[in-house]
């Protein structure tokens, strides 16, 4: 039982998971054609990066890495609010969410 509890995970696995999440976010950003899903892929990338911040905070026993993740979360929340407001404004002007058809900045 004690050997079962003392199993450990190399931190490189966490970093690999973080890299995989980031790459999946990039793939989603490239292949998705819905504005909202593209935005979700950006959130996925942010989460991937956050995981590697927490991993390195664990590695170096540094609290500041975790605080950086806290700041990233706050900025992500602000970004989500503004981004979704922009999406609503775009949808109101164009009546579509397909990124191929939203190719002009002017309304």
């Amino acid at each position, binding site marked *: 039982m004690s050997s079962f509890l003392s199993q450990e995970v190399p931190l490189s696995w966490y970093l690999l998971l973080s890299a995989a999440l980031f790459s999946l976010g990039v793939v989603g950003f490239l292949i998705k054609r819905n504005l909202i899903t593209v935005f979700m892929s950006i959130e996925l990338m942010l989460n991937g990066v*956050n995981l590697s911040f927490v991993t390195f905070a664990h590695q170096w026993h540094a609290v*500041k890495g975790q605080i950086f993740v806290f700041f990233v979360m706050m900025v992500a929340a602000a970004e989500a609010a503004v981004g979704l407001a922009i999406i609503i404004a775009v949808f109101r002007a164009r009546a579509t969410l397909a990124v191929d058809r939203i190719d002009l900045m002017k309304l």
Partner: protein
Amino acid sequence: MHLILFLVFAGFCLGGAINLLIQSHPINSALSLIVVMVSLAVLYLLLGAEFLAAAQVIVYAGAIMVLFTFVVMLLNAGREAHTLGSRAALRLGFPAVVAILAVIATVILRAQGLGVAKLSDGITSTEELSTVLFTKLLLPFEVTSVLILIAILGAVALARHDDTDQRANVERTGK
């Protein structure tokens, strides 16, 4: 125990992220993103970040994803159509991203001195975190509150339905 928890929730994470890409309806993508975020909260807890695990569930899985699902339902977003552009992005972009992932993975696997995580590592208490946050990093914290305020004002200003928009719409559609 740590190994099993890591494997289970890393699997949930990757499965949710892949499902986000496969699904064609935005609401299904949003729900799989919630799975990813909650699994990440468990991984944060395994790495000893208790405050971040709670914040991840409350802020990301709670607030941000509710906002996303709300907008998906509000705009009545339907299935996405695959176009020439998305197929080209898939053919060209996918190998490029796999190559980037391979480079990052090589760097990570060859890195020296990366430690291990185990359950007996202990957790970073919220007290420890807040001591640093409210003493050494007080200015960035306060500046972030200004950022949030600006974001609120911006969101309200952008999403407000004013008359000029409506008139432009009416003129354009001819109704």
